[in-house]
């Protein structure tokens, strides 16, 4: 019983980080209808930035979020302006945007592989080696910080969306793009801003990934499939859905991993993806596909 609760605890803690990783993905989909297959590639890029800061300047990966997030935000604005802004006005090209993000992911992967080679890396601040004890249960210290920070960032994001004028405009665009435009929302600018925010979220989660999960340039495909399964379960475009999807699937994966071995942990996500597509393609909180 203790073991079962321990696994649940670990699963929930991981789920919190997964939720942050998936938040940028679901936000961008909600506003623009773009499935950003390059999301995890940019996360990996951020992880390498954190690694550089850690190796060159001994900067703690959690602290480096302060630098990595704005850098990724600016990169997001640039990528949006260069690649997506004009495709977006053309409805027929919309189907191609997924391929575009796919190609972008290949570019990021190739460039990272060229500079950093294909070996596993990770940052190793002191807290990765210790654990926090709660009675009979434990939580790795780095994991605990990452989960708390993820929840904090998600809380800020939620407050931003809920209580600011820009957040209000973003939510309006998510609900109905045309109607938002009619009432005076500059959806083009909102899209650009959201793409930047999504990338900044990828940046924050990438910095934390750098000490939680070893990474190499090609690893991002596994990550993006995992993140997509969470987002599809919760319903594409729903932040609450991403959070719940992340918690549910990471707990299930934690049990699968402890009973059948860690190899099968990612399979949980992929199979879940197929099952959800089969049973309820719009997910738990997703909008029904528009006709």
């Amino acid at each position, binding site marked *: 019983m203790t073991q079962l609760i321990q696994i649940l605890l670990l699963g929930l803690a991981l789920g919190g980080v997964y939720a942050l990783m998936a938040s940028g993905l679901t936000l961008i989909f909600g506003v623009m209808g773009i499935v950003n297959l390059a999301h995890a590639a940019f996360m990996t890029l951020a992880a390498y930035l954190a690694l550089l800061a850690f190796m060159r300047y001994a900067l703690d990966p959690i602290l480096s979020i302060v630098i990595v997030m704005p850098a990724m935000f600016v990169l997001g604005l640039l990528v949006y302006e260069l690649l997506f802004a004009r495709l977006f006005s053309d409805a027929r090209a919309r189907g191609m945007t997924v391929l575009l993000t796919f190609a*972008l992911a290949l570019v990021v992967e190739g460039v990272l592989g060229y500079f950093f080679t294909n070996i596993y890396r990770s940052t190793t601040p002191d807290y990765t080696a210790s654990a926090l004890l709660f009675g009979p249960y434990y939580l790795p210290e780095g994991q605990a910080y990452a989960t708390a920070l993820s929840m904090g960032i998600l809380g800020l994001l939620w407050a931003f969306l809920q209580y600011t004028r820009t957040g209000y405009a973003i939510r309006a665009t998510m609900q109905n793009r045309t109607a938002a435009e009619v009432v005076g929302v500059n959806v083009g600018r909102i899209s650009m801003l959201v793409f930047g925010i999504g990338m900044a979220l990828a940046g924050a989660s990438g910095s934390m990934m750098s000490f939680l999960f070893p990474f190499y340039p090609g690893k991002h495909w596994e990550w993006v499939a995992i993140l997509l399964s969470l987002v599809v379960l919760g319903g594409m475009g729903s932040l609450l859905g991403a959070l719940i999807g992340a918690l549910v699937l990471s707990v299930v994966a934690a049990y699968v991993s402890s009973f059948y071995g860690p190899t099968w942990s990612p399979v949980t996500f992929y199979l879940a993806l197929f099952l959800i597509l089969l049973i309820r393609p719009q997910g738990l909180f997703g909008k029904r596909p528009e006709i």
Partner: protein
Amino acid sequence: MAPPAETLTSRPGMAVAAASSASKVLCIGLLLALAAGFPLLHLYQGGLNYWLHMLLFAYMNIAVASSWNIIGGYAGYISLGHNVFLAVGGYFSGILFAYYGISPFITTPFAGLAAMAVGFVVGMITLRTRGPTFIISTIALVLVTKIALDNWDYIGGANGMSLPLVPLPVDVVKLPFYYGMLLIAIGAVYVSFRIRRSKFGLGLRAISQDEIRAEVAGVPTGLYKILAFAVSGLFVGMAGALWGYYLTFLRPTIFLSILIGAKIVLMTILGGRGTVAGPVVGAALFIGANEFFVSQFGASELNIAATGALLILALLFFPDGIVGTLKHKGRLPKALDWD
């Protein structure tokens, strides 16, 4: 009772098309004669094994790209997981060969059928979704298949399995593979051509234009999509079976990297999605260019980055591909208009 296919495709331009068919037949005939005759040059003067290898690799890619075009071009459902069919074909024939001693030269057609069956079952699940979600499910398919094969001890898991060598002298050992791949490529292009001209193909193209209107107009969209997905696996599975035997070594990573699936899409888009000649032109040019760059710069990570960059450029500035763009401008040589 369905009307004969011809009436569906007859257009005012048909008479012109018929007049131009002579140059088309000549062009295709010449290509086929060159392809079939090339090994004679090798037998006569020798030392052309490298060229045989490149050509048979190009034929394989022509077959794969033409097959992908049936679901990705005609029906507009982008699959990034078509390399799974390569793996199915390769391992189907590989297992029969390694454990039961049946030569892949015999089992290749059945490997194609096996891939088709897999395509049917997978299509029943994934084709319930559209657009981005479908693309995601095809990526997940690649990852699931890779993990499954990596952990299946019977076939050696991630370490792979060796196949017995081909019992032929080195001068002629490539020839059966060369002609086999050529036949598979011809079959794939021919089937792709027949489908485009058929009521089935018309239905698929209607789906890519507007799926709901196609459904309302009476196209059985669900069945058509699944059939298109399954048929597009047929020749890919056959190519995989022959390719696996050619390599005499099977490993999941040979077939199941995301990059391979990406290249299938890229070469078809470069050539011209939805046209019959497009995948052929695209695959031939892409394989040539890729070989050139690999020999110049090495098969490094830059190859991945360049593949991605090329795909971005093609999507932004050249979405119709070579054949498609020329066709829109009315500049396509008649010999290349195979639709």
